[in-house]
Every structure is written in structure tokens, then in C-alpha cells.
């Protein structure tokens, strides 16, 4: 057993919306370099789980730890100030389903906004790094374009670059390709696979099962707010241990043969 | 302070007659303005410049003139045209003329937002023009324009207060009179404000009701 704290430690996370308990006692840990995929039928609470990690939603019970430090609320129950919470959030990157780019800023400005404004890094350094990230996601020529002029796939790649620019310890992906036209999905998955390969710590709620099968180091299966099964992907997809997992895989077997990240740049 | 309100309560008949005047003026002018506006809107959208241009000048002109000044001009100007009107009539006339322009513009906007197909269907089904207008065109038009017309109604209620300047005995004038005779400015005017607020809440309730009617038919 190592004494180095896990990158991410979610303990007994519980979330209620009104009378419905959307997350019940969800616990898991993420090691550095892992790519964890959270799967489950719609309504199982996957997105809510992700949004609880960086406290965009407030968990009703449980603790979130980032590198050993509590996020959002102390063990005692005392809730963090916006200031403290914001500082922690710079260590958690997030990629949104509908991209959430800031339309009044150019692509380059979207990426440098947080490094400059939040992390107080010098502008020249931030711009240099932003350009490198843009090149990495294949959009170097779009630096001065406004988001409105980009396709969905391009917007999401900018979204990924923006999340990477703050040098986070862990990257959260909330169904990053679900709002994309099918032919644009590939270009985003290529970038995500590359990140996984490079050792980025990622927690992904994928829209494409293929990504989970090929790129995940571990799969967490969520059903009606509870963790039903946790396993490496080859074991999960080949030999699901529970009835719920089996039912789920049967229904989604089709998408395993669908778009699974083949590069569009061929 | 309570004594002040008691004094205002004592003068409630004056206040209520002022409120009645405000209400009657507003409702009357709004209705007439709407009717005249309905007739002006087609002129506004006409393809013939000779008709559309004067209509446009009138509407834009009223949009740029402060109502208070317009009321003054109607009050002082009409006599030189040979019309001797008392302050009530000239106030009403000013409200009607001014708001006809606004109503026409509102209806024009609502008209251009209407889908064409249902109307074409009416024509295809053989509806004659007058019936087409009354039963196919007008109802959805009014439902769409509901909120904006409601806002204009509130504007009319507020504009009517300007007529206190020409000594028309509406609500603000009544409050002013009570104030100057009994030295109870706060009580008198706050009561007036609350009464205006009440009128507006009624109009807004009406607009909500129309909105619900519209929603059910969307």
C-alpha cells in the first residue's frame, strides 16, 4: 500500500434532487495516470457524479479529496468559501457536453483566459503554451477565430485545450462527444486517446462505448445512482459480473461497433 | 403618519373619482387607439409609397415626441383649428392620437411574426376577406401581441398622469389637490402610487390570462 494520496478520492458521495436520490453512497479512487470511464444507463447519475467532483453540484453527503485535500467541504462539514474552492478547481479540468466556450473571446483568448486571470501567469508564457496546445489538438490556424465560426468538433477540441491550459491534476469529461455530428466525433476521440496514452489522469463519462473499451484503464458501472460494478474494461465488456451490467451491455452492444475514434485525418 | 392616512381616507371620494377618471381615460383611449391602430397597420405595410410614407412619418413622429408636449399642443392648438374642447376631451384626443401610432407599430411587428400558412389555408378554404380577417387573422395576432399590448396599456395609464398638467381631474391631480389642501404629501401620493400599482397588476394579470390562452393554442 502506498502512502501517496490518490489523485482523486470520492467517498460515499450522495446527491438528492428533491425527493429523488440521484447518487447513493458512491465511492471510488483514481490513481495518477488512470483513465476511468463511468458508464451506465441514462439517468444513472453519471453526469451528476462528475459535476459533484468539482462541486458544480453540491453533494448532500460524502467527501471529495483531491491529492488528499478536501474539495468543497471539510470532513467537519464546514463548506468552503468560493475563494478556496476556486483555487482547488484550477487543479481539476472539465470538458463540457456543449463545449461552453466563451463566445466574446477568440479561441486563443478562451485558452489563455484562466491561466492569466486565475493563475496569474505572465501573458507571454500563457500564449506560448496555448499555441502549443492548439497545435496539439490540430487547430493552430484557428487561434484568432471566434467560437461561433467553428464546427462542433473544433469547438470541443478548443474546450479540451482550454481545460489543459490550467495544467490540471485530473481532467473530467462530461459526455464530450454527445452533442457532435457523427462525422465530427472521431477528431475529438483521437485527442482524448492521445491524452490517455500520455498518462493524463482522466475521468470520462463517454458517449461512445468504444472509447471505454479501448482507452479506459478501469470502468465504473453506475446504475440508479449506485456503483454496481468496477472492473478493467476487457473484463467488464467480456465477462460482466452482475445482471444489471449484462442487461446494459446487451442494449448498448451496437455502439461498440460504431464510431470508436478512428482518425478522420487519414 | 396614521393621522395623515386618515385624512386621505376622509378624502377618498375625490381620490376614487380621480381613479375612475384615470381608468376610464386609459381604457377608452386604449380601445380607440387599438381600433384605429388596426386600420393604420395595413397602411403602414402598404406597398404604395403614397400611403405607407405618411403612415410611417406619423408613427415615427409620435415615437419621437414627448407625450406631455403633445398633450399641450393638442390642448392649446385645437382652438386655433376652431375646435373648442374641454381638458377632458383634448386629453382623451391626445391619448388616442398618440397611442394609435404605437398600437399600429405593435400590430405591425406582431403581424410580421405570424406564419403565413394558416392564412393561406383560410384563403384556400374560400374565406371571404372580411371573415378571413376577423376569424383567421385577428385572433392569433392579438394573442401574440398580448404582452406588448399589455405593456402599452400600462404606458397609457402612466401617460394619463401627465394630463394633470392641463388640470384634468385624474388620480395624480386628485392626490395633488389633497396634498396641497391638507399638507399630507406622503400619505396622499403614496396612496396614489399604490393605486397605480394596483391598476398595473390588474393589467399584468390580464396579460397572463391572455398568455395562458395563447399557450394552450400553441
Amino acid at each position, binding site marked *: 500500500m502506498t502512502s501517496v494520496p490518490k489523485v482523486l478520492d470520492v467517498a460515499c458521495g450522495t446527491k438528492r434532487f428533491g425527493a429523488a436520490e440521484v447518487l447513493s453512497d458512491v465511492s471510488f479512487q483514481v490513481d495518477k495516470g488512470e483513465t476511468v470511464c463511468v458508464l451506465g444507463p441514462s439517468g444513472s447519475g453519471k453526469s451528476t457524479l462528475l459535476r459533484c467532483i468539482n462541486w*458544480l453540484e453540491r453533494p448532500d453527503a460524502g467527501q471529495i479529496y483531491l491529492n488528499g485535500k478536501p474539495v468543497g467541504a471539510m470532513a467537519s462539514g464546514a463548506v468552503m468559501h468560493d475563494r478556496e474552492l476556486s483555487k482547488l478547481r484550477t487543479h481539476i479540468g472539465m470538458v*463540457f457536453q456543449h463545449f461552453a466556450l466563451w463566445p466574446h473571446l477568440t479561441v486563443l483568448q478562451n485558452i489563455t483566459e484562466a491561466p492569466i486571470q486565475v493563475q496569474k501567469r505572465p501573458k507571454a508564457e500563457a500564449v506560448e503554451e496555448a499555441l502549443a496546445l492548439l497545435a496539439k489538438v490540430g487547430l493552430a490556424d484557428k487561434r484568432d477565430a471566434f467560437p461561433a465560426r467553428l464546427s462542433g468538433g473544433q469547438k470541443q477540441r478548443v474546450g479540451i485545450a482550454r481545460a489543459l491550459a490550467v495544467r490540471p491534476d485530473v481532467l473530467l469529461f462530461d459526455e464530450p462527444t454527445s452533442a457532435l455530428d457523427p462525422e465530427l466525433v472521431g477528431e475529438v476521440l483521437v485527442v482524448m486517446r492521445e491524452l490517455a496514452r500520455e498518462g493524463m489522469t482522466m475521468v470520462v463519462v463517454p458517449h461512445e462505448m468504444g472509447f471505454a473499451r479501448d482507452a479506459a484503464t478501469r470502468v465504473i458501472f453506475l446504475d440508479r445512482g449506485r456503483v454496481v460494478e468496477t472492473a478493467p474494461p476487457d473484463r467488464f465488456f467480456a465477462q460482466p459480473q452482475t445482471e444489471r451490467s449484462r442487461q446494459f451491455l446487451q442494449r448498448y452492444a451496437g455502439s461498440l461497433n460504431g464510431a470508436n475514434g478512428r482518425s478522420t485525418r487519414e | 403618519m396614521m393621522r395623515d392616512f386618515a385624512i386621505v381616507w376622509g378624502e377618498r371620494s375625490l381620490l376614487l373619482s380621480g381613479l375612475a377618471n384615470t381608468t376610464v381615460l386609459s381604457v377608452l383611449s386604449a380601445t380607440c387607439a387599438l381600433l384605429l391602430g388596426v386600420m393604420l397597420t395595413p397602411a403602414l405595410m402598404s406597398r404604395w409609397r403614397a400611403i405607407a410614407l405618411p403612415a410611417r412619418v406619423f408613427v415615427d413622429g409620435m415615437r419621437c415626441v414627448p407625450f406631455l408636449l403633445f398633450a399641450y*399642443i393638442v390642448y392649446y392648438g385645437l382652438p386655433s383649428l376652431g375646435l373648442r374642447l374641454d381638458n377632458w376631451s383634448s386629453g382623451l384626443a391626445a391619448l388616442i392620437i398618440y397611442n394609435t401610432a404605437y398600437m399600429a407599430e405593435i400590430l405591425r411587428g406582431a403581424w410580421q411574426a405570424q406564419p403565413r400558412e394558416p392564412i393561406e389555408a383560410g384563403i384556400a378554404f374560400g374565406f371571404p376577406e372580411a371573415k378571413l380577417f376577423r376569424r383567421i387573422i385577428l385572433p392569433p395576432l392579438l394573442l401574440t401581441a398580448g404582452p406588448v399590448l399589455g405593456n402599452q396599456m400600462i404606458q397609457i395609464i402612466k401617460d394619463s398622469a401627465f394630463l394633470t398638467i392641463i388640470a384634468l381631474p385624474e*388620480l395624480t391631480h386628485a392626490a395633488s389637490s389633497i396634498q396641497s389642501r391638507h399638507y399630507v404629501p406622503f400619505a396622499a401620493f403614496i396612496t396614489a402610487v399604490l393605486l397605480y400599482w394596483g391598476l398595473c397588476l390588474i393589467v399584468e394579470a390580464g396579460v397572463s390570462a391572455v398568455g395562458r390562452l395563447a399557450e394552450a393554442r400553441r
Partner: protein
Amino acid sequence: MSRGDIVAMLQGAVVTVTLSFIGILIGLPLGLGLAILRWANTPLLARVVAVYVSMLRATPLVTLLLLLFFALPNVGVPIGPISAAVLALVMNTSAFNCEVWRASLDAFPKDQYEAAQAVGMRAGQRFRRIVLPQIAHASLPGLVNEMSLLIKVTPVLAVVGVVDITRAAVRIGAETFEPLPPFLLAVALYVPIVFALVSLQRFIERRQAEAAA
């Protein structure tokens, strides 16, 4: 009307424009402040602001003006015609501006705000750098519309003795027994100002519609 009369009216016009300008200048940020209070949804304060705005929007400016001018001295706050006029204008226009700002705030896409949160921006930064630029852009037509409406109600300031265009016109009319010419001149002075604002509003709306297409 003599030359002196015309000069008096122009001086009145200067007073009108100055007071309008002050009203607009204070009313814009004040309206934004009120809208933020409602948007932030602090339990009691949001309710109070909602009622305050609703009442102010329903109150005719002349009634508000008379209320302030006569009632404030009565409760121990001495106030002159100009201060009462400015106060009434500011209260009135801030309530309308609040609704314009609020419409933009309500329409603001939530996920952009969350992206700003997710990337670690603090509340003040989120508002200043992400929300404000965009709602300012979206609110512009409504705010310019409100400016034109404000200018159109300024003739009422004469009621409490502010020597603006209207009062000058009334005085001249009373002296010359020809009330019409000064009022027509007053209208001639007002119309271009209002027309300029209305044209500006239409221009902004057209530009924004084209950009969105």
C-alpha cells in the same frame, strides 16, 4: 417669440439634456446592481427588489416627482427641485433598466458560467470577464430604448419648478398669449434627440441580427 425667448428655450434645453444625462449615467449601473441582486437570489433582498421595481415601473414619473418633492421635506429631508428631479429620474430609469439587464442575465447560457467556475475563476472574475461583456452586448438595444423613453418624460420636470424646456415654453406662452409657438419649438428641439437615440437603437439591433446570422 422674441430672440430672448428662443435663447431662454435653448437654455432650458441645456438643463433638460444635462438632467437626462445625469439620470442615464446613474440609472444604468444602478439598474445593473438591482438586476444582480435579483439574479443572485438572496432570499429577502431579491423579493424586496422585485417589489420595488414593480412599483416603480407602475408609477407615473409626475406622481413620483411630486411625491419626492413634497413628501421628503415633510419627513425632514430638505430637497430642491433639481435634486428631486434627478432622484425621480434615477429611480424611474433604474427600475426599467433593471428589467432589461435581468432579461439578459436570465438568458445567459448556464454552461459558460460553469466553465468559468470549473476553471477556477472566482465570483468577481466570473462576472467581470465572462458575464458582463455578454449581457452588456445583449442589453444594449433595450438600454438605448430606455434612454429615449427617459428623455421623453423629462418635460414633466417643469411641474416642480425646474427651469427646463417645458417651463420656459409655458412661461413664454403665458407672456405672449401665444402658447403654441414655444411648444412647437420645444417639440422641434426634442424630436431630433429622441430620433437620434431611436435610430441608434435600430442600428444596434440590425447589427446584432446580422452578426447572429
